[in-house]
């Protein structure tokens, strides 16, 4: 495998296709293309917290075996939930030989998982492999004057064992958008839960939480909330709809969409929201 082994996850192929499209463009531009893992299967989100539950780790281990087969020692994901699930399983079965052996024995039609695959989120790759300088150097449409509230949610930063940054005050996504010229806006709800899967059967729980997050971002002066997870994106968009006029002036986009715009993606491929932000940046640049 020449590029970085990339795990899409079920939602990235239809519901969150624009998250993926933007990321693929960005990484191509940065000279670190993402190469989709062959024969991947659902990671089995969310990580099962029961001590005896090996069955619910099988899905993730299968993908780690797939990664192993490509010769890569690392797997990159876009979806924060996939990141959390895959990295927690990788850590657990990597450390526990007995469990690893059991799972390998169960998956008798697969090669054994040897351990040692590292799972990273794209944000970590941008920070630790690509670097801010390279990101800035590749920026052709700096997002000047665009106030971005970087929203992490839970699965990127908790638990601490796999978190990509500080669990209470992460900064990595803020740094990413700053590197392409935007103004990161800190807000206290940046790592609060969006409501996640509660949107399915107790939607009011998710919508209330997501509304709080949006209001907090608005109060902090954000033009846009950047997300790194299809479910956070979904819940925040739905909250914006419920809030209606109260959410006027704030948009929710995937962080890769902002990067794609900044790195020169064809405007026709950008969503209307992102195009408007690009226009806003152009005005800011040309202004005083």
């Amino acid at each position, binding site marked *: 495998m020449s590029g970085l082994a990339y795990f899409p996850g079920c939602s990235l192929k239809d519901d969150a296709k624009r998250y993926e499209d933007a990321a693929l463009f960005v990484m191509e531009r940065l000279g670190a293309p993402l190469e989709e893992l062959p024969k991947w299967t659902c990671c089995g989100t969310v990580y*099962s917290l029961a001590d005896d*539950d090996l069955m619910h780790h099988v899905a993730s281990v299968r993908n780690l075996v797939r990664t192993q087969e490509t010769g890569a020692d690392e797997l990159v994901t876009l979806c924060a939930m996939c990141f959390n699930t895959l990295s927690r399983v990788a850590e657990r079965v990597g450390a526990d030989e007995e469990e690893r052996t059991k799972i390998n024995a169960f998956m008798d039609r697969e090669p054994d998982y040897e351990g040692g695959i590292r799972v990273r989120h794209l944000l970590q790759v941008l920070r630790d492999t690509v670097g801010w300088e390279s990101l800035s150097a590749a920026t052709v449409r700096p997002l000047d004057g665009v106030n971005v509230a970087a929203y992490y949610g839970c699965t990127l930063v908790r638990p601490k064992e796999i978190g990509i940054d500080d669990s209470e005050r992460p900064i990595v996504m803020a740094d990413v958008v700053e590197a392409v010229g935007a103004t990161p806006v800190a807000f206290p709800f940046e790592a609060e*839960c969006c409501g996640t899967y509660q949107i*399915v059967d107790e939607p009011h729980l998710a919508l209330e939480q997501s509304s709080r997050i949006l209001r907090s971002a608005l109060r902090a002066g954000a033009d846009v909330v950047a997300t790194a997870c299809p479910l956070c994106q979904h819940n925040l968009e739905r909250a914006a709809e419920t809030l209606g006029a109260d959410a006027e002036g704030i948009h929710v986009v995937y962080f890769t969409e902002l990067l794609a715009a900044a790195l020169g993606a064809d405007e026709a491929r950008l969503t209307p929201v992102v195009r408007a932000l690009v226009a806003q940046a152009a005005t800011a640049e040309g202004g005083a």
Partner: protein
Amino acid sequence: MARAKAVSREGLRQRVEELSGESVFACYQCGMCSAGCPYAEEMDRLPSQVIRDLQLDDPTLLDSNAMWVCASCLACEVRCPKGVDLAKLMEALRQIHLRATLDRVSLDRLSKDEIRELPQIALVASLRKKTG
């Protein structure tokens, strides 16, 4: 709806400790978990009360809604000064119900419109946490 078997109320604390791998007596009731839980308002028992009820081996805890309102956000886990993973305790309480073939989310009641709107991960995660 799958036929749920009766959920035994015997030895709740022990079963929860086995399923979670956590010791409930490590908790000294500081309340950090309740303070940080985004969903505490919706629960009929606060997270710190849930663990207190486990310490007291109160079987009525199984009727609480707390474990279903919990969204596994891990704010509690990350802040507990004694390192108690309350999220695992909540998972254990859910599993005790779910392993008796109780489905908390009914697939029949999900409309096609609802499914159309949701990203797959919402369904996958919801069914994983709330069906057995």
